[in-house]
């Protein structure tokens, strides 16, 4: 096979090997695209907030629409108490969105298609939310695992299920994003390979598929960033407004 669909996910070193102790923290293509995404976000939003026009120009409108979009999303799902976490969720949403979207450009690397990246983000959210929950409610936060209105007979089972579902949050959150990204990109690569192997005679069908898939993948890229952010909001809501 000429083009292995998985080679696009390979991480390789750019520049010299950097080591701290035994840890290898070399600058890789993944790091490059993290930096590029962050810089793109910073540049766009810096430009969008620089001038304060009463009738906003395009880039200002983009920045302000994103701001109101995320702020509405947070207030809808987690209420007004989640306001202090707005900038974190905003950066999270933008970071995931830009990583996903930049990955749609041919020959780029999709940062979020790596389980380690999404898992680190998800476990950070999980740990953070758990800490917030315990700070806000003390040991009362454990009431999250005891839903009200459940028959006492079923309670032990329910509590176990609740605990398992709570603990599986970081895994489900990270795998969802990672699998979606990897699946989409692999499929696009496979169809691209079909175009080449079937040549000019039969390649048109997979090509049209590829075009359709590109549209779908752009949608998925946005949707997964949105889902990632909104699930964070929902977890935060559980921690802030404990009424299970």
């Amino acid at each position: 096979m000429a083009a292995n669909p998985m080679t696009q996910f390979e991480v390789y070193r750019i520049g010299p090997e950097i080591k701290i102790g035994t840890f290898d923290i070399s600058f890789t293509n993944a790091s490059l695209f993290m930096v590029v995404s962050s810089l793109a976000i910073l540049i766009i939003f810096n430009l969008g907030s620089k001038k304060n026009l009463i009738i906003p120009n395009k880039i200002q409108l983009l920045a302000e629409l994103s701001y109101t979009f995320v702020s509405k999303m947070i207030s809808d799902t987690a209420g007004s108490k989640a306001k202090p976490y707005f900038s974190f969720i905003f950066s999270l949403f933008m970071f995931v969105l830009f990583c996903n979207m930049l990955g749609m450009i041919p020959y780029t690397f999709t940062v979020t298609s790596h389980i380690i990246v999404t898992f680190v983000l998800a476990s950070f959210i999980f740990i953070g939310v758990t800490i917030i929950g315990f700070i806000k409610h003390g040991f009362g936060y454990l009431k999250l695992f005891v839903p009200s209105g459940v028959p006492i007979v079923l309670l032990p089972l329910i509590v176990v299920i609740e605990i398992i579902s709570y603990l599986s949050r970081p895994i489900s959150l990270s795998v969802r994003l990672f699998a979606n990204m990897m699946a989409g990109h692999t499929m696009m690569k496979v169809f691209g390979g079909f175009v080449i192997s079937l040549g000019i005679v039969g390649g048109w069908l997979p090509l049209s598929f590829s075009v359709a898939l590109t549209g779908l993948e752009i949608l998925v890229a946005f949707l997964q960033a949105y889902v990632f952010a909104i699930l964070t909001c929902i977890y935060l809501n559980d921690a802030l407004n404990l009424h299970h």
Partner: protein
Amino acid sequence: MKKKVLFQSIFFYFFFIKEVFTAESGGMPQLNPEFWISQIFWLTLTFGILYLALSKLILPKISSNLELRKSKIQENIEAAEKQRKSSEQKIKEYEEIVFKSKLEAKNILKDFKEKTLKNINSKKQALDKQIDEEIKKAEGEINLLKKSAPEKINRIAIETSSELLKKLIGAEVNNSSISAIVEDLSKRNGEKYHDN
């Protein structure tokens, strides 16, 4: 669903048949822990910087921009409301003025009408008086004439009868005798004419 099935088949295909892969990649590159630490490090760094820059520099600016616009729009709306109210007040004043002036115009018209009517009436009365006087005068004259008319007629009758007699008889007749006859006749017939 289709996508999922397709993905899974591809995934398992590559997962189980290791010969397909090149030696260094070894299955899914995502599961190769060689660069995990590097990725975690760079993710923490870039995301940390991104978060700090957004939360400390950019987002407050956007938020204040939005607030400013909101307040400005609110101000403009309030100013517009004020102006609308003042314009309504002006319209009311204007309408009042128009109403007042209309009333005034009506009054003036009424006064003028009355005045002219009075004037006309007084003139009419004066004229009537004059006419009455004239009529009275004329009546007096007519009465005078009427009173003097029989005498004159008598005289004419006397003269004409004397002339006629002279021509018929050829002799002078005494005027006094004729006049006696005429007066007697006129007195007898006069009651017929002088009834007024």
